[in-house]
């Protein structure tokens, strides 16, 4: 008879998702705060606008890095190798 052995382990995966509306909220909050903090020299609007530029640049950098580091675009795609493991017997 066949003897069956079961082992359970936790697998963590990462995947990229859309930015959504939270990013816009974060943009407003961060730039407003930095505008008030840096309003000493050029006023609020000068600090606010440069903060917007910096925030957008940082966003673009993060998107570029995440696209290189994280390849999966969805949860199912992230666990595709684990699902395939049910056929070939390897879990990565």
């Amino acid at each position: 008879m066949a003897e069956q052995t079961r082992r359970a382990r936790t697998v963590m995966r990462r995947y990229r998702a859309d930015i959504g509306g939270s990013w816009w909220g974060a943009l407003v909050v961060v730039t407003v705060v930095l505008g008030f903090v840096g309003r000493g020299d050029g006023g609020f609007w000068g600090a606010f606008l440069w903060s917007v530029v910096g925030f957008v640049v940082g966003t673009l950098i993060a998107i570029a890095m995440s696209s290189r580091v994280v390849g999966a675009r969805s949860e199912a795609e992230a666990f595709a190798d684990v699902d395939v493991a049910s056929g070939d017997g390897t879990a990565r």
Partner: protein
Amino acid sequence: MRWLMMCVAIVLGAGITWLLTVRRVTRQVTLSSATANGSGERPPRADVLGNEAAMDEAATDEAATDEAEGFGGATTQESSSRMGWDRTSQDEDALFPHDLHAGDRGVTGVPPIQGATPNGDLAGVTAPGAGADPSLTPVDEGPTVGDLGPELGAPERDDPEAAAGEPESGGAHVTESATPAANDDPPVPGPAGVR
């Protein structure tokens, strides 16, 4: 001051964007491995809990494997040589039973005939219309030539070598096609011998 704020905005923008876009998900994976009678280890199977699609796929795969085993075993992997046929089947001799080539075993159930050619052919052994050769007496039990009819009067011989080497007058003689070596060879059964 402005560049400092730019750097802070860049760091905050990158960090917040990373946190909003890159998401982590954790699953508990169950690896099951089966060993059948110690003959080998079946590759482990992963069932992802909480993923119904994956579990259904694994169940379908398992059902297909069980179905294949009902027909003689699971499908094996394709050979690396990609040979689409059995090399042995190209040999015509391999299609015959090995015992047929043995000759001396009498596997066909027909008693061997003395004086027959090594391949069991009796063509030319008897003259047409001369009836059965009385020397062609089966060695083993079974339907003998004498059983074909009492008028043939096939005498029973206890010494098959004498029967093969010294055919009696009146009966058909074994022709020269039967090589001398054939007399030394063990008799080969042939269905034509009893006809």
